[in-house]
């Protein structure tokens, strides 16, 4: 008898928890949108998810945001679940541009429209199934970074790039950077290009090694703020803050603050809010039967110290 009682309690407990959680969602939504990104712990994506939720609610849609946790298989499973649950749309930020194609194909076969943001799907069959993609113009942002780097170094000396080759958006930034330098016949010499895995600690480690190998570099371009800030820490430790200038990317809250504190020279801005709103708008247009552009790129903008001084959003630590 005791064992049965224990069994019942356990099950009731689970049921209660699940029920309460599911009940706490307010009714009266017309439908659901499934959102999955590569890593919800990244404030960039968290912000986008939140804004999507706000926007979609205005049109009567509920957003369920999941994290792909950098696991392509997990993300495909999430897509399957969205399909099974009969969601009205899917907003996808792929962990792996090709692998996500499989999930997209499933969604398309079930008639659910898929919109991508920030990172595109590159699988040859699946990419045509995407209704619309919206993202920063990473290539153009790279050009801006190149421009800043040439300006601040006086186009003289050696520089290094801290990149993140697993993510296509970062590859585009680096390409833009290099192309700008080439097109303007820059005399800057890129001595090395290493992966900082997009985070602060790896950026720090890599930058330390770069400074050891090339003690006379004058600039570092990092493909996002975390790796840029990591590089700054290494430069600071080596006592070379006067010698080395860092250009990062994103203009995240941390990046904006760093520009204000003159740790970074420039951090070409992304506009995650625009990305989020843009995705929702694309979906609504689709529902309305309007034509939706296949790709929409939001240009980046410079973010210099001058921009940071009176920037209210920086003070409020917002994007």
């Amino acid at each position, binding site marked *: 008898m005791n064992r049965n009682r224990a069994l019942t309690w356990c099950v009731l407990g689970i049921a209660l928890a*699940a029920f309460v959680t599911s009940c706490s969602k307010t009714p009266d939504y017309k439908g659901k949108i499934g959102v999955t990104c590569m890593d919800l712990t990244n404030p960039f994506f968290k912000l986008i998810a939140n804004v999507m939720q706000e926007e979609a609610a205005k049109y009567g849609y509920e957003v369920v945001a999941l994290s792909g946790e950098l696991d392509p298989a997990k993300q495909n499973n999430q897509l399957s679940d969205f399909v099974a649950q009969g969601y009205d749309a899917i907003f996808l930020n792929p962990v792996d541009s090709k692998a996500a194609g499989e999930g997209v194909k499933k969604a398309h076969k079930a008639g659910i429209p898929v919109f991508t943001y920030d990172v595109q799907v590159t699988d040859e069959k699946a990419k045509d199934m995407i209704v619309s993609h919206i993202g920063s113009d990473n290539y153009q942002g790279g050009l801006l970074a190149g421009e800043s780097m040439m300006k601040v170094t006086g186009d003289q000396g050696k520089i290094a790039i801290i990149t993140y080759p697993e993510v296509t958006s970062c590859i585009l930034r680096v390409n833009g950077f290099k192309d700008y330098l080439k097109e303007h016949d820059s005399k800057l010499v890129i001595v090395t290009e290493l992966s900082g895995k997009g985070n602060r600690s790896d950026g720090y480690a890599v930058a330390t090694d770069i400074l050891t190998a090339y003690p006379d570099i004058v600039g570092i371009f990092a493909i996002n703020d975390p790796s840029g800030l990591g590089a700054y820490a290494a430069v600071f430790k080596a006592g070379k803050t006067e010698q080395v200038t860092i250009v990062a990317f994103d203009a995240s809250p941390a990046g904006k603050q760093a520009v204000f504190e003159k740790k970074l020279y420039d951090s070409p801005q992304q506009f995650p809010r625009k990305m989020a709103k843009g995705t929702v708008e694309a979906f609504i247009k689709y529902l309305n039967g309007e034509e939706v552009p296949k790709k929409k790129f939001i240009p980046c903008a410079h973010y210099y110290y001058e921009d940071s001084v009176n920037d209210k959003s920086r003070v409020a630590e917002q994007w």
Partner: protein
Amino acid sequence: MTRKLLNDYGMFFVLLLLSVLFSVLTLKEQMPEGSAAAAQLVEQINNEFKKSDIILTVGAVNTGSGPFAEALFKDLRGEGFSNVDKVVGIPRDLRLKLDDISAQGGVLAAIATTGDVPKWLVIELMPEKYPEFSGCKVLAPKSYMWPVFLKRSNLLAIVDRIVVIALIAIGMTMVIITAGIDLSVGSLIALSAVIGTLLMKKMGGLQAPGWVVLVGFLVGILSCGIVGGLGGFIVARFKVAPFITTLGIMMMARGLAFMITGGFSIYQVPRALPWLGQGRPLGIPNTVVLLAVLYVTAHIFMAHTRLGRYIYAVGGNKEAARLSGIPVKFVVVFVYVISSLAAGLGGCIQASQLNTGTPNIGIMYELYVIAAVVVGGTSLSGGSGRILGTLIGAFIISVIQNGMNLLGIESYTQQVVLGAVILGAVLLDKARSGGGLLTFLQKKKKY
């Protein structure tokens, strides 16, 4: 007999209970689709509308509402409704059609549809955009309640998501029954996927014929088997603890996978690759068939062959087994080889499901595999456990993950719940076999 079945496979009832629970919690209004639903509406339209009215049957492409629209269109035409038209596509197509009708000065009498189509903004905002259609009715068949959990597509999704873990759990069950553990399986998934797809790429890539895929798979699986054999040898011959041995192999395999690929994914894979993981030759997915075949084989092996018995004996009392003449070292190496071969196969299936070879898959999978084995009733101290129990354990994990996704529970909450359920399942199992929980509940008794 039933008593024994109950004892051995008690977790089956937990699985049943969970399924019932999620079915109840995911009851949702469903719209009937297909031709039967169409027939329902025909009658209604006959009664309410004139034969000359303009009526549109609308369906969303690739969903069940498509055939519905087609069928209804045919039926209505058959009934003599001459101004019936159909739109099967995306909202834009409907918009263009409405523009057409409006341009020709017609008045739309009704839109007949089903599924999610009524939610299209085109239809919702029709009174604003097309005031001339003010009297237009939107018709849909009556809805019914059915758990989303039990939809065919969802049940297949449950199997699909757990296939890799369940497969590897076969090997892990054997290892754990010998009182060992294999932490390397997650990394071996990546290693096999990467080696296999790299070989496929070198042998022709995108244009390569189907047999190349097979060769790639075999090489990937075999390399894992060799690695596993090495680990088993170290455990058996040098008596190093399995935990440490397989931990070392886990790190080496993962590093190797990243080294081989330079951290990138391998995209140039043959077109035939997805067939294993996603193909459905007989209406049932390949993976389901593979799972069934392998589990039945493994069950028969463990329960009815000598080597199977030896595995139990080695786990139950290694020295007593040795003194009974059992080749203990061989048995130990064998189970680790099987475990790695299974991991290799899992990697092939995952590569097939993702249609790509990446080195960062399978991370943390070993823990889910072990959880499936333990939840399924196998004891970590060795000597007991049932293969089919592991299958049930794997399903329990998959059902819970799927159910929580369906209920829209947040990712991190999901992890907490999953951990709690695993603990609960194991405690329940102990209570069943009269362990600490039972006496804890009985302690209050006085004499």
